């Protein structure tokens, strides 16, 4: 089965690889925000939106980045914000540089198009990254699609490719709606026809409020979590999150069981 067939069938890719990749592009596209296109030396396994890759940079832990888009069987892109030594190092790498990567890792988003009349993507800051990839995959889905993107101010804005309903919020009001992206979601969501599925990624406060909104209007919601990870592949059991399972509260691994979870089962 080809990658595109697998994605169309929404089936979970099982193959992962640890390999070298060449940096094809590494450009600053907004304040402290970069887009990097990576070309793995051999075919990169099929992936799903919500899955991530490890980049092996400086120090002990690799750094996990959501896949923000794929171009064919090999290339993919990530978006990142410079927030520490590793991302600063990453931002300085030139086109043609070689880095080690592993992926695709974790479990991605699930969407059954016939079950919903609309899909609502909610991203805050660099949390829009996995949603760009999802947006791309929902391109040919018949249901309504809405992309809520929120940033601190207009200098941080990155927008997804393609057409569709993109609703923008900035906390300082320098572009779009003035307020947080979940404030905007709360105002708009009643106008959309049910049932909806919400996909959210961003800071903890955003996710918590998005889940509250989903609960209030009885919509399904999946959220992509971010934590510190030592391995990104289930070796160390370090990146746990509290999860409400049928048997009661338990820990789940963000790297292996997630990073995408049913938002209503995460205990914030």
């Amino acid at each position, binding site marked *: 089965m080809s990658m595109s067939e697998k994605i169309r069938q929404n089936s979970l890719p099982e193959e992962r690889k640890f390999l070298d990749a060449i940096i094809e592009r590494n450009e600053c596209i907004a304040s402290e925000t970069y887009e990097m296109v990576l070309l793995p030396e051999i075919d990169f396994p099929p992936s799903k939106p919500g899955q991530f890759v490890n980049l092996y940079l400086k120090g002990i832990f*690799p750094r996990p980045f959501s896949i923000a888009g794929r171009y064919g069987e090999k290339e993919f892109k990530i978006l990142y914000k410079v927030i520490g030594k590793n991302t600063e190092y990453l931002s300085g790498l030139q086109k043609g540089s070689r880095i080690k990567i*592993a992926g695709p890792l974790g479990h991605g988003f699930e969407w059954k198009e016939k079950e919903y009349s609309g899909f609502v993507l909610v991203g805050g800051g660099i949390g829009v990254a996995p949603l760009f990839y999802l947006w791309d995959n929902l391109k040919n889905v018949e249901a309504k699609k809405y992309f809520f993107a929120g940033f601190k101010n207009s200098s941080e804005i990155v927008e997804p490719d393609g057409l569709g309903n993109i609703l923008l919020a900035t906390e300082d009001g320098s572009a779009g709606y003035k307020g947080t992206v979940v404030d905007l979601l709360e105002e708009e969501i009643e106008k959309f026809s049910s049932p909806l599925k919400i996909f959210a990624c961003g800071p903890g406060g955003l996710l918590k409020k998005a889940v509250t909104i989903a609960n209030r209007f009885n919509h399904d919601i999946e959220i992509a979590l971010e934590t510190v990870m030592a391995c990104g592949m289930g070796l160390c*059991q370090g990146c*746990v999150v509290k999860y409400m399972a049928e048997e009661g509260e338990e820990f789940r691994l963000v790297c292996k069981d997630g990073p995408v979870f049913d938002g209503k089962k995460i205990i914030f």
Partner: protein
Amino acid sequence: MEKKSFSSGLLRVKLRDDFILESPIMPASGTFGYGDELVDMIELKYYGAIISKTITLQPRSGNLPERICETSCGMLNSIGLANIGVDRFVREKEVFYSNFHGKRIVNISGSCEGEYLEVIKRLEKCEWVDGYEINVSCPNVDRGGIAFGTDSHVLRSLIGKIRNNTDRFLMVKLTPNVSDICSIAVAVQEAGADAVSMINTLYGAAIDVERKKPALGRVVGGYSGPGIKPVAIALILKVKPELDIPIVGIGGICNGEDAIEFFMAGASAIQIGTAHFSNPAVAKDIYNYLVNYCAKEGISSIEKIVGVALR
């Protein structure tokens, strides 16, 4: 899987007459899941033995987050022996362990002697287990763990009882968090262990300056990674002359040169831990380095350099 060496015996090491590894490389418990996490990503043939994460009698969910923290020369962990428990381990891992080409070692811990013995009893029924590594050095649990590893009388009693319940290869993982590691190692040998593995993590902590709080939820955890390598080398150099049983070296091994240091200090085999996180294919890199090293030095076996730094 066929059981044959692919290095013509250059890297073959003997830890007991009937316990021979075709490669001296093992994963350190707790850094490689149950052994089967990476089957689709890396080649396991470079490991002479697989070591499970610590298995306890009952399943354990482990400690509250934050459980891990990166430091400048390593990492801190406070996982708390999270594992699926011995019964589920036996049920779910049989197929993988049965098909693994090398030796299969299960790392076990308990909060009292009875728990260690019960876990052994259940694993003795599994033909696919070749040996045990006894964890008496975990710094991250309230009961058991390190409490057994810091008192030579308590440890001697525990290992003696385990020895009476199994003929399989028996290795004891030592903690560096003691004032006299030699007396602990000797007690383990006298109690009938076949090998010691050393060292487990050092006590460590860090402060998250943004939150003004300890970086780990449990405050103090285990420090591992390249920063602890000199400590491990020092303790192996100290213990080696006192012991007749082999030492399996652990502590910050990241590459082939690090591995050579451990052999020269007196280790007969090695375990790779934290380095798996920064390089999942580290075993392959070290394996190839060791094969080339033997060729370059003109030695017929890696065993020829064990303890040379002490001669």
